């Protein structure tokens, strides 16, 4: 039964006007998130998003991944010493004066 439904859905995405397949949807994701998708393509993208559970779940997780990636480094910076090793600063200053 599930296989029949999948094949019907696939037929709809491939044949109905204004519809795209999940593979085509995939190609639009980056531009969609950057807001650089032309209006017509954006509408087509959003129609697919509304009707396709898999792509909806995929995009939600994709966006959460980006957000998590951005936040995760805030943590690393907080855990490293705030100051730069003094010997690094000394080395840079010494290298500068010897370069004169």
């Amino acid at each position: 039964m599930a296989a029949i439904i999948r094949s019907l859905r696939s037929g709809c995405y491939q044949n109905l006007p204004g519809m795209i397949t999940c593979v085509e949807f995939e190609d639009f994701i980056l531009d969609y998130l950057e807001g650089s998708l032309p209006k017509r393509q954006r509408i087509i993208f959003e129609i697919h998003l509304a009707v396709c559970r898999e792509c909806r779940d995929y995009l939600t997780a994709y966006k959460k991944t980006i957000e998590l990636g951005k936040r995760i480094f805030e943590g690393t910076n907080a855990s490293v010493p705030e100051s730069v090793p003094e010997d690094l600063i000394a080395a840079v200053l010494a290298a500068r004066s010897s370069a004169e």
Partner: protein
Amino acid sequence: MNLGGPIDKLRFLSARSSSRIRSCEERNGYRKSQLIERKLVGRALEPSEKSEQELVQRLKDKDPAAFEIFVRAHAGSMLAVARRIVRDETIAEDCVQEALLSVYRNIEKFEGRSALGSWVHQITVNAALNQLKKQKGRKELSLDPLLPMFDDGSLRVEPRVQVDQTPEDIVGNEKLRKYVLEQIESLPDPFRVVLILRDIEGFSTSEVADFLGDTVAAIKTRLHRARSALKKLLEPIWSEDR
């Protein structure tokens, strides 16, 4: 050590908020300076910008005290950037040293069209990318099994993932946070670097293309693959009963 007098230092610190605040915000500090820079066009300079100009002028005059002020103000953020790219503390420090000396040698070329911070950010990234090229190739994971899957009818195959945790929850959990960092580190360098530069350092796609000497189209493809692979690698962490 001569810091160029307390007044100079004070002026400089107030100009860049303070270096302490900056290092707490290292991750997006540079991005902010880029934003500020974009707002600069067509209006009078503020005091902070004036003192940055003064510092740049002193650097151009090869004033050693100015160089030390500059080093102390920027090295922290530079080190954070280099660490994210090269993943090794000693090599990251080498990058910062190289980048700082490069700033000193090339300050004449700084025309003030962008904020000093974003110029330094770019120099640091370039130094780190150069170091990365020198590193021996490590055994890298294959992205293919991590990329999106589709059936014969071009329909996506996507497992239902139970989501109980927010990004905040994960960042706040030491074990999960470490896991996420490890997954990012495990991405093959060409993909990892694009992800870091674009999503973490906040450069535009065309800026990343310039850094890596690649086309915008190639960078877009790699960015999308890197994000997709990371999404797959992170699937287990979203539900509580892993």
